[in-house]
C-alpha cells in the first residue's frame, strides 16, 4: 500500500541524510521525498511517499522515530488528510498543436506560467493521480521536460 509519511525534524545539517540513509540502509522504498522549513525556522517538514505492507510501514515509522533529529512522525494515510503535488511541464507547441494543448490545459485547469513561441511552461497542482493523468494527456513526443515536486500533505484534524 502507498503511504504518505509526514515528519517534523530538527532543521539541522545532516538531518535529511539521516532519513535518506535510513531508507537506503534498511531497503525501504521511497517514491518521493519533499522537505522544507516550516513557520518555525528550527523545524523542517519532510513528506515521504513509500510503498509497503503494514509491517514494513510500521518499521519505517518506528525507525524514523528512533532518529534523534526526528520530532514527530505521522502516517497521513492513516487519517483524513489532504495531499498535493505540483508539476511543471515544458511542452512544445506549434500552429497545429496549440489548440489541442490549450483545451487540455483548460480541462485540467492548469496554468500557463511562461509562453514562448515554441513552448509553454505549465503548472498544475493536485493529487498524484491527477498529475499522472495530466502528463499522460499530452503526446509524449511533445513533452520537453517534466519536473514534479513529490507529494506533500497535511492531516485534516484541527489539533495536530
Amino acid at each position, binding site marked *: 500500500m502507498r503511504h504518505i509519511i509526514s515528519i517534523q*525534524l*530538527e532543521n539541522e*545539517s*545532516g538531518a535529511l*541524510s*539521516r532519513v535518506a*540513509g535510513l531508507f537506503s*540502509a534498511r531497503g525501504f522504498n521511497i517514491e518521493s521525498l519533499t522537505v522544507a522549513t516550516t513557520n518555525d525556522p528550527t523545524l523542517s517538514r519532510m513528506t515521504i511517499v513509500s510503498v509497503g505492507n503494514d*509491517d514494513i510501514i*510500521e*518499521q519505517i515509522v*518506528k*525507525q524514523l*522515530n*528512533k532518529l*534523534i*533529529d*526526528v*520530532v514527530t512522525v505521522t502516517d497521513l494515510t492513516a487519517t483524513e488528510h489532504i495531499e498535493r503535488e505540483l508539476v511543471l511541464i515544458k511542452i512544445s507547441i506549434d500552429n497545429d498543436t496549440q489548440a489541442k494543448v490549450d483545451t487540455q490545459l483548460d480541462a485540467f485547469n492548469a496554468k500557463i506560467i511562461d509562453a514562448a513561441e515554441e513552448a509553454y511552461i505549465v503548472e498544475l497542482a493536485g493529487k498524484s493521480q491527477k498529475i499522472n493523468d495530466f502528463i499522460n494527456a499530452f503526446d509524449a513526443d511533445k513533452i520537453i521536460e517534466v519536473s514534479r515536486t513529490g507529494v506533500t500533505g497535511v492531516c485534516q484534524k484541527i489539533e495536530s
Partner: protein
Amino acid sequence: MKLNGAQILVDCLKSEGVKHIFGYPGGAVLHIYDALDSCTTIDHVLVRHEQGAVHAADGYARTSGKCGVSLVTSGPGLTNAVTGIATAFTDSIPMVVISGQVPSAVIGSDAFQEVDAVGITRSCVKHNFLIKNADDLAETVKKAFYIATTGRPGPVLIDITKDATIAEIEYEGYPETIEMRSYQPKVQINTEQIAKAIAVIEKAQKPIIYSGGGSVIGNASEALTTLTRNTGFPITQTLMGLGAYPATDKQSLGMLGMHGTYESNMAMHDSDCIIAIGARFDDRITGNLEKFCPYAKIIHIDIDPSSVGKVVGVDVSVIGQVNDVLHALIQGLKGKTLSNIDTWWKQINEWRKVDSLAYKTTEGIIKPQTVVEMLYEVTNGEAIVTSDVGQHQMWAAQYYPFDKPRRWINSGGLGTMGFGLPAAMGAKLAEPDLEVACVTGDGSIQMMLQELSTMLQYHTPVKIINLNNGYLGMVRQWQEFFYEKRYAMSYMDALPDFVKLAESYGHIGIRVEKEADLKPALLEAFKQKDRTVFLDIITDPTENVFPMIPSGAGHHEMLLAGRDEMASTNDSGLNLV
C-alpha cells in the same frame, strides 16, 4: 572564565565523571591532548591502534555499566575507529567517541586527513554531531552523554573541528540538565499491556523466559532472577544475555540459538508462551523463521519499539526499561495462580539427559572445551571473560557458566575478531580487583596484537587463553559442513611463536601442548597477579562446535556432537550466513 575549546571539552568530560579515555593523538586533536595533559582526574590510555581504543572503551563500558570514552584524530584515526564503533552500536553499548576534524574553513576541500566522519559513521552510531564552533561544545557534549546512556544505549560520535578546539570563549560551565524535544527516552509503562502479558502467562502450560543483552545492559539481573524464581519458569539466555540469570541455577537451561543447548532450543520450539526480555530475535537465535516457535504466544519486553515485530510477530509487547517492566510484572503476578508446569519440567529434564554439551576426549590431544572448563575451575567461575570471535567464543560461552552479569564480554552482534584483547584491557581498568581472561584464537588475536604493548604500559594484567587450533576454526567448520571440506583460506601457515611474541612485549608466554600441563599452566598464569600471561594452548585442530542448528533448520532440528552426520544444507540454508 575564558577558555579555549579544548579546555572546555576536557572540563565537560571531567564534569561528566569520565575517569578513563582511550585514544590516540594526531594533528586535529593536539589542542585536546594539550588540555588533557594538565587534567589530573582523567587517565588517558594511549593505545596502539584506534580500533583498540574503541574496543577498550567498549570493554570498560560493558564491564562497568558506565559510558566508555574514546578520542581519535581526524581522517585515518576516525576510519580506524569505525569497526569499534559499529561493534558497540550492534550490541547497544553506551559510548562517546570524540574525533578531531580539519579546520572548519577547509571542510569539503579534501584537506589533509579530512574524511566526512559524520557521513561515514552515520549508520553505525546512535547519533553524531559535527561541532564547528566552540560555543556549541558544552551543550553538545551533554547531549552526547545523555543520548549514549539513556533509552537503548549506543555510541555517539562528536566530531570537532580543530578551530573549535583553539577558539577562546567565555565558558559558563557544564550544563546540569538537558532537554531535547526530539529525544524522550523515558517511557511510561503501559499497564494495559502488563495486564495482557499476565493473562498470557497465567494460562501458560509450557512457558519459557528468553532473556537477552537488554537484561544485562538494563541492569535488570535482580528483577529477572526474582521473576524467574517467583514463576518457577525455565529460562534460556542469549549469547549477549549470559550472566543476567545465574547459569548454574537449576532453572537455567543455558544458551539458545545456533550453538545453544538442546534443552533450550527444544523448549523454545515446544513452548506455548515465550517471555522475551531485552532480546531481539536475531537470526543466530531464531534459525529458520518459518519453523520458529510454532506453538507459542510471544510476550516481548524491550526498550526499543522498533525491535518489536521487526523479525517475529508478537502477541503482547511491553515497551519500557526492562528493569521497570520486570518489576511491574513481578508486582502484577503477586497473588496469581499459575498453571502447574510439572509435566513441562519433566519433558525439559528428559531433553537435558541428552547432555548436548558432552564431548569426546582423545588421549594426548587438548580439547578446547576442556581448557574452558579448567579456566572456570581455576578462576572459581568468578573471572571476567572477554572473547574474540570464532569457535573459541562459542566454547567460552558454552563451558564457562556465568552467574553474574557483566562478566561475559563479547562482540555478539557484529562478531568482530580483534575485540577480545583490547576489551580485556578495558575490563581490567574497570574492575582491577577481578581476574580477567581473554579467550581468543590464533586468528583473532593477531588482529589486535599490538595492544599487548598498551597493556604493559598501563599495567593491566590479564590472562590470554589462546585456543590455538592453527585454523580460522569457525570458517573451517563451515567449510567442512557446507563446502565439502574444501578448506579455502582457513588454514594459517606460519603462525608466530606466541611465547616469544608475548615476551618481546614484556609479558610472560607459556606454550601448552600436553593435557597434563594444562592445569599447572593455568594455575601458574593466575598466580602471576601483576603480569599479563599469554597461554598458547595447542588444541585439537579438528574439533567442531556442537550442538548446532544448521542454517535453514529449526530449533528442533539440531545436530549433536558425534551423533549426527552433518547433512548438506538446503538451498535456503546456503542463502544464509
